[in-house]
């Protein structure tokens, strides 16, 4: 039961974790916007910001390997699409620009998401008058995400313990049943959650 793999480190303690959510969000947004808007010829900005991100990663006390893995998880897509930009005149510069900019933005967001609990982001949204319905849906989604992942793992384990070898065609069949079952179970769970919410005086 390792269902906290998504944001395991967002609740540890470090100088960056202790910063207020709004400060972190404003910093991250400013950095992302600057990185995208600024021309690539401002080399000093890109060099400086890369160093700042590295420093941030060190101060955050999140395992470096974890951050690197997260970065590498999305890098194939970045490289894949930007390779297409090589197919034009001056493509080399565009390729370099896109890879640099998106890697920096990605690193910024990885640092933000791993130093800020999602619930803090939700309360910030509430402050910013984001519609209540959206916040309720996001909060419910985040709360039960881990429960559903857990349930999926249980179903998969049950399946694996009953099959010796999984054939390709079987995988599809079991995955489809799994998804359908998961939907049915989440609907049933939603009904129980509603009763529980009502019992505690919701609306």
């Amino acid at each position, binding site marked *: 039961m390792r269902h906290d793999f*998504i*944001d395991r480190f967002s609740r540890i303690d470090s100088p960056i974790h202790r910063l207020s959510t709004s400060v972190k969000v404003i910093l*991250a947004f400013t950095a*992302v*916007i600057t*990185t*995208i808007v600024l021309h690539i010829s401002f080399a000093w900005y890109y060099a400086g910001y890369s160093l700042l991100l590295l420093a941030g990663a060190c101060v955050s006390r999140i395992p470096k390997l974890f951050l690197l893995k997260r970065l590498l998880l*999305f890098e194939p*897509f*970045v490289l894949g699409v*930007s390779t*297409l*930009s090589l*197919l*034009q005149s001056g493509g080399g510069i*565009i390729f370099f*620009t*896109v890879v*640099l*900019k*998106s890697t920096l*933005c*990605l690193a910024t*967001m*990885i640092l*933000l*998401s791993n130093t800020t609990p999602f619930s803090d*982001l939700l309360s910030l949204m509430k402050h910013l008058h984001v*519609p209540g*319905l*959206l916040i309720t*849906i*996001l909060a*419910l*989604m*985040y709360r*039960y*995400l881990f*429960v*559903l*992942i857990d349930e*999926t793992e249980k179903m998969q384990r049950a399946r694996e313990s009953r099959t010796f070898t999984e054939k*390709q065609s079987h*995988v*599809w069949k079991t*995955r*489809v049943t799994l*998804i*359908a*079952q*998961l*939907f*049915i179970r*989440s*609907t049933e769970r*939603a*009904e129980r*959650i*509603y009763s529980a*919410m009502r019992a505690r005086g919701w609306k």
Partner: protein
Amino acid sequence: MHIPDGFLDTKTIIATTAFSAVGFGTALHKLKNTILPHQIPMVGLTAAFVFVAQMLNFPVVAGTSGHLVGSVLTAVLLGPNAAVVVITSVLIVQCFLFADGGVLALGANIFNMAIIGSFFGYMIYRIVNKIIPGRRGWFTAIMFASWCSTVLASILCAGELAWSGTVRWNAAFPVMANVHMLIGIGEGLITVLVIAAVWKTRADLLEENVSRVSPSSHREFIIYGIITVVGLLLFLSPFVSEWPDGLEKTAALLGFERNAIDSSLIQFPISDYKFPGVGSPAMATTLAGLVGAVIVFILGLVISKFLVSQSDKKISTR
């Protein structure tokens, strides 16, 4: 298909953010007015369900694997307005929890996958469902709509990348569209099989949800329709004129006069395309897309026949 930050330029970011703000605003407003209190947890849990379902990989040929996006699946399960809200929530959580998809590109991703993916897919679903009645038509509609929604979303993605000047349309469009024509088949199959499986065990759930969560009215259809059309015009039309570009390039390479080619293109736009092959890759892709659509539709008909007979068997044995 989640576009990361850095691929889109300022004008594309502003345009896509504006479109998705209008579309999402409409969906949320409508949902707020029509949703019954007990359905709110249901929408939240469905969003969590879509997130988890996207993490399950399906093996495809040669060691590669694909996964569900779920735009049409959600639209069929909960109706189009709830689907736009659900897919948007999934994208928001993926962006802020996982850093999957950029923050400034969030507008583009919402536009492609939540608004076009769900709404356009739902429209196709409704149209096909009307043409072919009965349960067989229903399954065919689901499969075909999922394919169309995946392919259109990818084409829009290519258009946005080209509009930003990151990737040339002549490179982005063929690659994105061709890859997603294959991915779309997987999406269609998974969607229809999942819905058939839900239908087999809890048919009541489907009927109840479809009729009750956010019944859609003409007003949103008009708003979504306008956003879709304007988006398509904005992101795709600049490149329609660019289609002969590949041909022009090869001609220039072969030593023809540029002007001569240009004027001949204006005068005889059709006669210059040698069907099939020689023309530009974008043209070939468009043709492949049309052929692909027909193939997927037929595939949908075949699969739906099988699914209907399967589900009937299940009922008779009960």
